[in-house]
């Protein structure tokens, strides 16, 4: 029974929450901007002193906690950062704040596992993969995505519907299997361990070389169901036991991960629902307490919504900054300041032409591959969905624009049917592709307008610079420009 501990709310106490001046919600700022404030007075020092580091770590702690990194994990993480940061030399091009961010970022990447981890190979065929996790974490969907992925890679997977608990769980997997073109082994009238065992045998008969077993969601403290899961594990002798964790999970991720590690000998982690805007601190927590690699992340509900895990991207996301530091460095190295400023201004006036686009395209090229750059923008990957940009397609766009006359580049409206055919012929593309580019260019002008009006041009795409405002003068002393006051006046 519940004990009240002698407390019963009075009217006066109820009034507390409505009291004026109640603290406003803290809005997450990127760590870079927070540290910018901390280090305001510390420009140009050679080494990070203990006091500097302490001040910075207070901010780092808050950033990690807001990102849902577990309290205990945060503590040990900060210990490691402290050890690395005190006395560290501030690299020539960086401010002390940036130096700390860099150390934090590096340590995050190290914690997350530096390398991408491939699936363990089969010890005996068929290869066996067991999906485990809490209720609703994404096991079934992930099992199907994985099957689809392996099938695309030339394997012959078999999905096994060993969730006999949740209503219509078998139907769900069967539907997904049909969609993926992967056979599903099901039997509603048996027990999960028996089913799993039979499935491995069946795989041999069907000529399948991978078996993926979906299991019912369960709480790690549910003795009965955890014992059942252990039995399934023994029956399957899996090469991989993958814990699927919802990226929105909070502090409890450590308990869940530990619980499943103890009972099922996890071999890897998968984080689902990263297409949302959760920072995903649970990834650090679970990774730290299990020591198991994160193998994949879920980025959508469709079969193609599974990606190989990239520690760098995750670290950046956790800090809410995209890989801003790298982006700054690259931008500074490659960007022609004058040109970028002019382009930015044009964008805001929606007077951006194909000429400018071509210039920008070349600058983007100098900064690295598109995929790389995209990974550095917080939220960009998810905002763009699964359509990975290719440098080859970028070249095609460039070819089309190069086949336009200067006047066409400045006024795309000029481009009629015959011009379109000419451009297509000149660039080795089809008139449809030219059309598409024109349409999309119109679209992007609309987005620029949105940007000028202070909205993010893509849903879910946070513009790092707008958060990091305090750092401005220090981050990009050479680029911090006259553009800013102009914009302010507009508003």
């Amino acid at each position, binding site marked *: 029974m519940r*004990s009240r*501990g002698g407390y019963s709310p009075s009217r006066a106490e109820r009034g*507390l929450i409505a009291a004026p001046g109640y603290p406003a*919600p803290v809005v997450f700022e990127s760590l870079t901007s927070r540290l910018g404030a901390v280090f305001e007075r510390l420009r140009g020092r050679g080494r990070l002193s203990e006091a500097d580091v302490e001040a910075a770590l207070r901010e780092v702690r808050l950033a990690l906690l807001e990102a849902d990194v577990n309290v205990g994990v945060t503590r040990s993480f900060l210990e490691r950062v402290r050890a690395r940061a005190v006395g560290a030399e501030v690299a020539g091009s960086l401010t002390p704040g940036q130096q700390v961010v860099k150390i934090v970022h590096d340590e995050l990447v190290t914690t997350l596992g530096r390398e991408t981890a491939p699936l363990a190979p089969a010890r005996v065929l068929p290869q066996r993969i067991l999906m485990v996790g*809490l209720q609703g974490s994404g096991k079934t969907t992930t099992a199907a995505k994985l099957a689809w992925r392996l099938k695309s890679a030339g394997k012959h997977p078999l999905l096994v519907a060993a969730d006999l608990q949740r209503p219509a769980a078998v139907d769900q997997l069967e539907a997904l299997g049909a969609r993926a073109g992967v056979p599903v082994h099901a039997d509603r009238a048996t027990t999960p361990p028996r089913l799993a065992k039979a499935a491995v045998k069946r795989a041999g008969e069907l000529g399948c070389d991978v078996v993926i077993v979906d299991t019912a969601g369960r709480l790690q403290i549910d003795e009965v169901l955890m014992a059942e899961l252990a039995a399934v594990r023994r029956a399957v002798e899996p090469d991989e036991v993958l814990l699927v964790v919802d990226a929105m999970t909070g502090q409890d991720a450590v308990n*869940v991960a530990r619980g499943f590690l103890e009972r099922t000998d996890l071999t890897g982690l998968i984080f689902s629902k990263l297409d949302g805007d959760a920072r995903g601190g649970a990834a650090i927590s679970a990774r730290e307490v299990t020591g198991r690699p994160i193998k994949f992340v879920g980025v959508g509900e469709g079969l193609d919504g599974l990606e190989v895990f990239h520690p760098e991207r995750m670290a950046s996301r956790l800090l809410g900054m995209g890989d801003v530091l790298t982006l700054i460095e690259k931008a500074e190295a490659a960007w022609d300041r004058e040109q970028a400023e002019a382009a*930015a201004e044009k964008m805001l006036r929606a007077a951006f032409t194909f000429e400018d686009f071509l210039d920008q395209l070349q600058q983007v090229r100098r900064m690295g591959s598109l995929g790389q750059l995209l990974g550095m923008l917080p939220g960009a990957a998810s905002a763009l969905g699964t359509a990975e940009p290719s440098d080859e397609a970028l070249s095609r766009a460039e070819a089309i624009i190069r086949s336009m006359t200067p006047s066409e580049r400045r006024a795309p409206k000029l481009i009629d049917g015959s011009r379109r055919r000419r451009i297509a012929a000149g660039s080795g593309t089809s008139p449809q592709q030219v059309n598409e580019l024109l349409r999309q260019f119109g679209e992007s002008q609309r987005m620029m307008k949105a940007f000028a009006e202070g909205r993010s041009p893509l849903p879910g795409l946070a513009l790092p*610079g707008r958060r990091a405002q305090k750092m*401005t003068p220090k981050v990009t002393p050479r680029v911090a420009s006259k553009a800013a006051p102009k914009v302010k006046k507009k508003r």
Partner: protein
Amino acid sequence: MLLVVLIVVAVAVALAVAAFLLWRRRRPRVTDVRRDAPTVPAAAAGGLASGLAPTRRALGERLAGLFGGRLDAAFWTGLEEALLAADVGVAAAVGIVERVRAAGPPDAAAARAALRRELAGVFAGRDRSLALRGEPAVIVVVGVNGSGKTTTIAKLAAQLQQRGLPALLAAADTFRAAATEQLGVWAGRLGLEMVAGQQGGDPAAVAFDALQRARARGKEVVVVDTAGRLHSKRNLMEELGKVVRVLGRDGGEVGEVLLVLDGTTGQNGIAQARAFTAAVGVTGIVLTKLDGTARGGIAVAVERELGIPVKLVGVGERVEDLLPFDPEAFVDALLGGS
């Protein structure tokens, strides 16, 4: 299609750099939807307390250690960390501890009482009863993927049925594989009628069909299941808006829009509550999976910042595992009882 991406990417990268040049701060928009109302006494507390047992133990152990000692810096940090470890979040944890500290409690026991008061104060003064308004009364259940919407509907329908209100269930999750079958299994078990549509069909059409059917049959309550969706996906939120709008047509009235929050959710829960409220006017929250080790502290943050009342809690997978939210029991459980 690739070109689409291309342009977007090139522009996005250019914009990012432009953003560095422009450094402007976007003012946070605070959606204040607080709607305080007279307290309605909550019921069935014993069940909640037992469902919350793990919460109590875990946090209780921490606090037991804390409350033994003196009120030094470590004490206050420990207090803050205990709240953080329950997913209360930085803003709420810091704010709450600050207020307790400011009250100047003489000793640990007094600090503890003040903390309890502070937490209870967050939940005080909100109507947590379900609004069964409209003919028929309409309850729409929304939330992110996998939070427990469909199961909650089964539980809720079972309880309504026990009170002589057999609800009509609307399977308006036309998206997820076998979502209709899942609700159908529950409808079958409970002996309730369900209206469904085509896989991939228009969810608003299913909802409207159900409403029409309920009218024709003189049903008093319609409960609408919706597909899980991440609140950051604009098109999906618009789709949801349409479902709710359609239900308000022809003199219809949506009495409750219940947001199902997974009890293991961290700070993202606030963004969820904010976005779903902006899109469809959430009237209450269902906090699920409190039978696990998660403590559901996100409820503190959500009520404190947005003022949306938690109305129900889920403490298991069976239909009887849905309880009215009892703030006192919840706070007691969060603090580990005494």
